[in-house]
């Protein structure tokens, strides 16, 4: 297994992962999107709302604010020692009160835990003269599996690493160079050369326009079957490195849990075998 980082920022990453089965990359992608938990507002007590939005609409907008999450200090309500009733281990309270005329932004939420705060400046509602809102919001951990507001990973995907082969029969007519929407091919010294193979979108327009391709396989767009260009992005709630490593941890934790169940069954069967 090999990793080559192309880009790595706080929120987005792009890397080449090679020497793995497509199923593994897909599991990582699925885990990043739906299994890594993050905090989101899940319950709202509205004390006063004289704005133009219904309570429900306001609650939905609050839910979709990405919150910076320290995954080591919170647990999922279903796994909490309080049994999901709600305690400082599994939930955090945020309050908001504002009076018009003004636009209320997500950054005006006051959190009980200073480490939990909106990751993004999101306009929540526009208040006019005499419009007021006053509310308490409860944020809990959840997974993208249950609701998109708990999705830490956004725009996570992968593609096979492209492999473009140009044979000696090429007459360097330049049709493929003009056809390529990504500028992958150039003509240099009367031969077609591949300059940026990874930028190729595998659209195969170059194969289609090549007249000689009807006779020989002059230009061929293929892929490396066990190499993938993975792109991943977070909503800002957790850093991208953490999202990627936690997705791998999540898969191994689940595999371990399943193995735990199987070991119990294994032992029971062994005992039955000895008994008979």
């Amino acid at each position, binding site marked *: *297994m090999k*990793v080559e980082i192309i880009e790595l920022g706080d929120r987005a990453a792009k890397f080449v992962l090679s020497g793995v089965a497509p*199923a*593994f990359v897909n599991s990582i992608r*699925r885990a990043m999107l739906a299994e890594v938990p993050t905090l989101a507002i899940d319950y709202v007590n509205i004390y006063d709302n004289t704005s133009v939005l219904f309570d429900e609409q306001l609650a939905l907008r609050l839910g979709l604010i990405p919150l910076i999450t320290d995954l080591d200090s919170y647990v999922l309500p279903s796994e909490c020692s309080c049994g999901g009733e709600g305690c400082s281990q599994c939930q955090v309270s945020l309050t908001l009160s504002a009076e018009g005329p003004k636009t209320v932004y997500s950054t005006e939420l006051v959190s009980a835990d200073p480490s939990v705060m909106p990751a993004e400046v999101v306009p929540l509602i526009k208040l006019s003269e005499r419009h007021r809102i006053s509310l308490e919001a409860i944020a809990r951990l959840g997974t993208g599996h249950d609701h998109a507001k708990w999705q830490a990973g956004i725009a996570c995907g992968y593609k096979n690493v492209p492999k473009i082969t140009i044979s000696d029969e090429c007459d360097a007519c330049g049709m493929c160079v003009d056809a390529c929407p990504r500028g992958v091919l150039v003509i240099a010294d009367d031969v077609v050369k591949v300059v940026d193979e990874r930028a190729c979108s595998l659209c195969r327009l170059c194969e289609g326009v090549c007249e000689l391709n009807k006779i020989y396989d002059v230009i061929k767009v293929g892929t490396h079957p066990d190499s993938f260009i993975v792109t991943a992005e977070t909503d800002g709630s957790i850093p991208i490195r953490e999202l990627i*490593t936690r997705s*791998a941890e999540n*898969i191994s934790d689940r595999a371990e849990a399943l193995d735990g169940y*199987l070991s119990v*069954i294994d032992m029971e069967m062994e005992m039955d075998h000895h008994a008979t």
Partner: protein
Amino acid sequence: MNLKILNKTDTELEMEIAGETHTILNLLKTVLLEDDAVEIATYDIKHLGISEPIMYVRTIDKDPLQAVRSALGTMIAMCDEFKSVFLDRASV
């Protein structure tokens, strides 16, 4: 997660893995099929959102339970390797 063994013989294993999704099972199936002793490894989620996945494994001369357990071990090793390789590259 909740596991229910539906059928178990010396070469066959059918189990319902409640609460699991394609995330784990597709990888498990792929890893299982790389084992030469595994003849069939497949799973099915009958109706999206309401059914629990059922996995079926058939082996030749091997306890299917052991085959699944060693595949799970391989999966865990893959995840650990990916994590360490990624962090190693990311820190450069």
